[in-house]
């Protein structure tokens, strides 16, 4: 089976080994094409972003203005802080040169002056690995001012690594740009989109680490080759990170469209103790969870998961067995979003707090049925009413977990309904009992 990123070649992270296998040769091929031809090749390949939204990469690149009096930039998103996602880390460790080579080609396609690779601060040791790879590429004249000579081209660009400092929100594209600029990293209101107004107000394209790392193989082998791997509507291989209750958790590079059950039972070795699956989150904690009885026949690609009522996200699959306490899981997920909300919009800042309080109440055995309604109500009020998608990411797990596992949440709460004051007054108007009687109860 074909792999593109996590190859079984020893020491592939080393520049000498990478070059022995044809590494950095594809830059020459790309630079012999026009920038638009490179964009066209990526467009035709059908490559979709691996950072969560599965947006068409070639199309995104084509949004960049062809002429601009300002410099242009490429941002590469390696913030990787979505719970359940741990795939970009494998690229930093095992194939950093594919990322660097991909950056050289992508920069050329959009005519960027520089690329900034944003890596979460906790990945300190992986940043060092990537920095070593980058230093090697610089010293061989593959990046920076010596490129012109090496590749016999008038084009040159620089690649820099920017280290994050522990904030999930910096994975959001406009927050990431503010973070690089040294500003408080609040997400920006869109439009304008990064292609018009990105880093330092300049035209900017942002892509995920895995997305960019796929570029060299696409240019080397041609769009036809890539478009035939996996599901035609979401082609290529994906790095699936499987965690939770499985025998062999880890990152598996497989063609898109692999069956979710295949991934869990064949590749990740199934559930310990032969237990049944209660719940699977298929794409990182922000994506709607599926019931154990909903996963049969579900394929792992953007379109199939959408049809199944969830989303591919970052391909981080979290498996929970039949004994899992979903109230605790949802409370923990919600605590994460409460902690990571930047606080800029009221629905997200306040709503995540309310949801967390209600869920903790239920987890302590003090919740009531009306808490479930409250949770769904708050979630619906956050969704679509915020500056960035963190709001939706916080709302979805609550909304879908409670509706899809209603029985489990019902069991965890007390039956009596604590009526809000307004409805109490309203209901009194319709009662035949005298008020005095009611007050006694």
């Amino acid at each position: 089976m074909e792999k593109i990123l996590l190859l079984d070649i020893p020491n592939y992270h080393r520049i000498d080994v990478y070059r022995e296998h044809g590494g950095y040769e594809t830059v020459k091929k790309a630079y012999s094409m026009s920038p638009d031809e490179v964009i066209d090749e990526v467009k035709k390949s059908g490559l979709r972003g691996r950072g969560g939204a599965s947006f068409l990469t070639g199309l995104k690149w084509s949004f960049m203005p062809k002429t601009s009096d300002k410099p242009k930039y490429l941002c590469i998103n390696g913030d990787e802080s979505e719970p359940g996602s741990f795939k970009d880390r494998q690229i930093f460790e095992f194939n950093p040169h594919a990322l660097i080579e991909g950056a050289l080609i992508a920069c050329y396609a959009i005519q960027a002056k520089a690329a900034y690779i944003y890596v979460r601060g906790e990945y300190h040791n992986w940043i060092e690995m990537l920095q070593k790879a980058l230093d090697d590429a610089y010293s061989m004249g593959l990046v920076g001012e010596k490129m012109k000579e090496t590749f016999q081209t008038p084009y040159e660009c620089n690649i820099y690594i920017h280290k994050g400092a522990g904030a999930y929100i910096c994975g959001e594209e406009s927050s990431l740009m503010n973070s690089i600029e040294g500003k408080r990293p609040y997400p920006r209101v869109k439009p304008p989109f990064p292609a018009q107004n990105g880093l330092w107000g300049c035209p900017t394209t942002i892509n995920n680490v895995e997305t960019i790392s796929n570029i060299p193989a696409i240019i080397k082998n041609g769009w036809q080759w890539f478009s035939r791997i996996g599901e035609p509507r979401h082609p290529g291989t994906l790095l699936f990170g499987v965690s939770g209750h499985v025998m062999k958790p880890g990152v598996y590079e497989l063609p898109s469209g692999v069956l979710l059950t295949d991934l869990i039972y064949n590749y990740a070795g199934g559930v310990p103790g032969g237990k049944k699956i209660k719940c699977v989150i298929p794409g990182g904690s922000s994506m709607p969870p599926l019931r154990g009885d909903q996963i049969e026949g579900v394929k792992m690609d953007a379109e199939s998961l959408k049809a199944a009522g969830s989303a591919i996200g970052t391909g981080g699959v979290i498996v929970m067995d039949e004994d899992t306490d979903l109230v605790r899981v949802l409370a923990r997920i919600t605590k994460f979003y409460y902690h990571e909300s930047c606080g800029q919009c009221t629905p997200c800042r306040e709503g995540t707090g309310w949801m967390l309080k209600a869920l903790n109440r239920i987890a302590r055995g003090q919740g009531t049925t009306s808490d479930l309604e409250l949770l769904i109500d708050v979630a619906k009020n956050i969704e679509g009413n915020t500056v960035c998608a963190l709001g939706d990411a916080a709302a979805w797990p609550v909304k879908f977990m409670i509706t899809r596992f209603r029985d489990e949440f019902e069991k965890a709460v007390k039956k009596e309904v604590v009526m809000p004051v307004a409805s109490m007054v309203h209901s009194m108007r319709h009662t035949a009992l005298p008020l005095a009687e009611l007050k006694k109860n």
Partner: protein
Amino acid sequence: MDFKFTEENLSRIESVRKKYPDSKAALMPVLYIAQEQNGYITREVMDEVALVLGIKAVDVLGVATFYTMYHTSPVGKYHLQVCTNVSCMLKGGYEMLEETVKKLGIGVNEVTPDGKFSIEEVECMGSCGTAPMMAVNNDYFENLTKEKLNEILDSLK
């Protein structure tokens, strides 16, 4: 308490600035350098960072207090970060946190009196496939068990 960058760090700052078109963008790397030198980031440190970069102190404050990895109060020589997010939780993340608290006799966000250890409960660190995990300063320790955790803590001198 006055804070001044060492000569060596000033030259590191100079080279970091070259990565960006303006000096404000060097703020995050410079805060890391400051934290490395001082252990944590005080108001005096922030003022000095502002001065060196030629930006406003309030802008430094806004950034330094936003991120969890910039410490505005002292942490231990070994800063223990235990993940309790979903994938770790499913594999015993909270048990690891409890064991750490029990063993060191301090609470989360506290430092031992000898200044050797501090504990932080952290969000997902990207170790979901090797859960549960704890980071000691910059180093990840994964696939933890209580025995392994105790061994690691005992080995930290």
